[in-house]
Structures are given as structure tokens and as C-alpha cells.
């Protein structure tokens, strides 16, 4: 039955592509979370009245975040080809997609981190300072735990965007379901292959959203 509906789908190849997408999404999400958190914390802590209040640093970080957030991803990939080549000595394969994926997604996530941090009650930060907490203690024990639900729902959204980005990264031969849908499906006029790749991506997105929602609900004690 499934073979009559999707006659041209090469299942082992489809499965391999799905695993590649999964791999790219997982690794880039982790890297994006790390860089995005760091950038978001810098944006927050350098803003006025905060521990590292510094106009120049705040403006500079904000500018970098805004520039990379504004470049359309497909253009960013092309712009980053020389950088990727320098970094990894290749521009093909799943690993070659990581610089573009992380540089494209981390600024986006940094903004969401900033929003999450700004929502923390100022009184709680004042209380921590009144107890004699160091900035590092405030970061690890107040800022991150108190904004965790926002950080998790932010990374969920970012992760889903990254699934889309990995598909676009297909144009530089990153592999995964995007490449398969484009090369095997679209260019060879096999609509069933494109459709199957789409279905798998949809399933992946639903699973990510479901996990994200579940975790957010569980950790939110407000």
C-alpha cells in the first residue's frame, strides 16, 4: 500500500536523510543554545543598571545580533562559504552546515533569551544583591533558573526554525531531507519523494514542539 502511494521513495536513502536532518538539527540546536545564551546574557548584563552596564558593549552586541538576524538564511549560507571552508576545509556534508546554522540561529535565540531575562522580577535580582551575591552567582542561580521556562520555549521555537534551515542548507550539499526533496524529488520530478520528505519533517517538528511544551510545563512553578 505505502509502496503504491510512494512508488519512487528509496526507503533506506530516505531514512539516512532523516537521520542526517536529525543530526544537523540536534548538534546545531546545542551550539545555538550555548552561543545564544552567552549573547543574550551579555546583552542583558551590559544594559543600563545591570552588573556590567556598558553602553558601547551593549550597542556592539546588539548591532551584531541584529545584523546576523536580518540576513536571509539562504544568503547567509552563501556568504559564509569561504568562512566554512577555512574552518572545516570542506563545504559539503552535514558538518559543513553548522557554521551557517549556528550563526543564523544564535542571534535569533539571543533575542529570545534577552526577553526571558527581562521578564525576571527586578525585585528578585535586588534581593540576590542584598544577600551579597556575586554576578556569577546571580547568573547561575537567579537569571538562568528564573527564566528557564522562557529559555526552553525559546529554544523549542529556535530548534524548529533550525529544522527549516537544515532543509535550506541542502543547497550547499549539506544532505538531509531538504537535499533529498530538492535533488531526488523536485529536480527529477518525483513528487512522492518530496511529499514523503515533507511528512517526515512535519513529524519531527511536531515531536520537537511536544517535547518543548512538556518540559516548559513541568519546570514552570509560577
Amino acid at each position, binding site marked *: 500500500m505505502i509502496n503504491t502511494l510512494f512508488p519512487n521513495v528509496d526507503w533506506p536513502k530516505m531514512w539516512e536523510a532523516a537521520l542526517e536532518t536529525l543530526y544537523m538539527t540536534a548538534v546545531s540546536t546545542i551550539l545555538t543554545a550555548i552561543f545564544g545564551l552567552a549573547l543574550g546574557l551579555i546583552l542583558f548584563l551590559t544594559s543600563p543598571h545591570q552588573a556590567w552596564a556598558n553602553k558601547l558593549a551593549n550597542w556592539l552586541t546588539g548591532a551584531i545580533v541584529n545584523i546576523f538576524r536580518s540576513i536571509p538564511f539562504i544568503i547567509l549560507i552563501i556568504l559564509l562559504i569561504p568562512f566554512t571552508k577555512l574552518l572545516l576545509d570542506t563545504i559539503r556534508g552535514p558538518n559543513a552546515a553548522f557554521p551557517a546554522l549556528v550563526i543564523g540561529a544564535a542571534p535569533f535565540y539571543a533575542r529570545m533569551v534577552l526577553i526571558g531575562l527581562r521578564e525576571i*522580577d527586578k*525585585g*528578585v535580582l*535586588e*534581593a*540576590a*544583591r*542584598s*544577600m*551579597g*551575591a*556575586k554576578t556569577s*552567582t546571580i547568573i547561575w*542561580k*537567579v537569571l538562568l*533558573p*528564573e527564566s*528557564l521556562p522562557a529559555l526552553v520555549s525559546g529554544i523549542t521555537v529556535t530548534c524548529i526554525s533550525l529544522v527549516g534551515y537544515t532543509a535550506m542548507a541542502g543547497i550547499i550539499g549539506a544532505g538531509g531531507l531538504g537535499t533529498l526533496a530538492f535533488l531526488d524529488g523536485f529536480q527529477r520530478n518525483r513528487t512522492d519523494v518530496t511529499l514523503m520528505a515533507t511528512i517526515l519533517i512535519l513529524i519531527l517538528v511536531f515531536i520537537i514542539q511536544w517535547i518543548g511544551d512538556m518540559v516548559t510545563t513541568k*519546570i514552570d*512553578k*509560577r
Partner: protein
Amino acid sequence: MISLKDVSKKFKTKLGTIIAVDDVNLDIKQGEIFGIIGYSGAGKSTMIRLLNGLEKPTAGQIIVNGKEITSINEEKLRQVRHKVSMIFQHFNLLWSRTVAENIAFPLEIAGVPKDQRVARVNELIELVGLEGRGDYYPSQLSGGQKQRVGIARALANRPEVLLCDEATSALDPETTDAILDLLVSINEKLGLTIVLITHEMQVIQKICNRVAVMEGGRVVEEGDVLEVFQNPQQPITKRFVSQVSEPTQTMQTIQNLVDIYPNGKLIKLTFVGEQTEQPILSRLIKQFELEVNIVQGNISHTKSGAFGTLILQIDGDALAVDEAIRFIHEQKVSTEVINND
């Protein structure tokens, strides 16, 4: 314990410079409960934040527990803050932590080992009356319980000074009383100095030994609570004192009584300290052939004694009335004839 010398704090804003604290001199003694009262914008919030270095003064000296805190570095200031803790109007608990974890937070900051932390947290939970609530999250507690957590958290590192920033302003009157009782018992049990800011005279009346009245960044009046209650000098102080001693409807009632009993005399008696214990009223009725009607009565208990006013309507023979007033006067109760026309 705490002393402020010529302390000023100015804020620069787009609309110009705001003087939040204006040349304040204060001395707060070891072990006392010191109240600072003022309306919002009087500078009291800034003032209390100067005492733990959350705000730096633009001029003057602040000495807390023998340390000059205006000139010391961040590291030393953090050490000072372990011994000068603070509770807040909106409690400022970490929602992501349980009650026990919230109380343990300042201990973590001070680097207390885990086993000692657990023991100390249990002690504190008991001290503030939250037994069995250790694993609750703040969202599962009432306002009063949250403030108890705030107090326990503030006491964790055995501070010498407790700063209370409008600690009862977000609570209902009954809970306010319970929290104030807790503060008094802590003050007595642990001997720690409490500095509180409030806009409610009831709070000052109930637990403070001394009070400073702030207006426009300045301390306009300062003294023992009972003295200030007896003999308020500044108009703003009189307004605060009347918050607790004269409900607003009093004047209306008096006007009505003046209309109903045109022949009577309305007399306001002010009792201070010991006189409130004496049965002046029953002696008055026994000795004189007079009709005595209580229009309004109010005895306030301050920490250093009672303070009360009683408005009587006395009717009868004019001579007897005069003599009765003289009698009351002899009991060292100050009297004031209200409708003396």
C-alpha cells in the same frame, strides 16, 4: 549600630536632578526597632537602600556595625550584606525554588557547606512557623507565608541588622499583625536591630521604639514613638498620628452631638502611659452629678507605652462641669474643650 552623617543622595534624570535623600543625620541603636515613615516619594526607599549599599550616597558617611560602607569595595560590601539583610514588600522570592531552597539561597551565597545548610534551614522554618511547608513552591503560599519565607531567608546568615522595605504593605491587616508580631519576637529573641520603612502609622505604633518622619528627602522629626505620638511637632507628623488616633468620621460625629446636645461640653482627653490604666471615668461619674457620654474612644498601644484619646460629652450644672474638668486635669490627663463657644 548604624549612623548616617550628612548623607545626601541625588539622582540625575532627564528632567533634572532629584534629591531623594537630603542631608540626613541619624543614629540607630543596637537592638532597637527603628521606623522611618513617610509618604511615597519621601525618599524612604532610597534611604533604606543606602544602609546596605544597594544605593551609594552622593555625599556623607554611613557607618553600619562599625564599618564605613560608603568607601569600601564590592567584595567587602558583599561581606557586610551577609550581616545586614533585607525583606521586601513583594517578598522577592525565587519562584523556581522551594521554600527550603529559597531559605538556603543566602547560605549558598555565603559558602555554607550543604549539611550545615540543611540543619539551619530546618531551624529557620521552625522559627518562622512554616513547619511542613519546606517543599512547597512560593506560588503555593499565601502572602503572609511568603513574607515568612522572606524573613527566614533574611535571617539565614544570622544578621545583625534586618532592613524591612514596606514589609507589610502588601498584606491584609490580620496578616500584617502576625508578621509584626514575628518581627518583634525575632527582635527580642535574637537581639537584632530592625530598621523598617512604612507609610502606615499603625506599624510604627505597634512595634517601633523610635521613629523618624521623612518628607521631601529630609528627616523632619525624630524621637521615641510615644513622645512623637503625644506631641507631634510637624504638620505631616500630626497627619500620621491622626491616622491611628482619630478616625475620619469623628469630626462629623462631634458636629452631630453638638447639634443634638447644645448644652453639653465636648471634651477631648489625651492619655499617655500610666494614666491609661486608671479608672478616671468611673471616678468622674461617682464624684459628680453629671451625664457623661462617650463620643469616641481610642487607646493605641505603642511599644513603649499606651497612648489614647477619649472624647466625652459632659452635660449638667455648668459649675459642676467646670469642676469635673479641673478634676480630670488633676489626674495629669490633658484636656481640651472642643465646642468652647
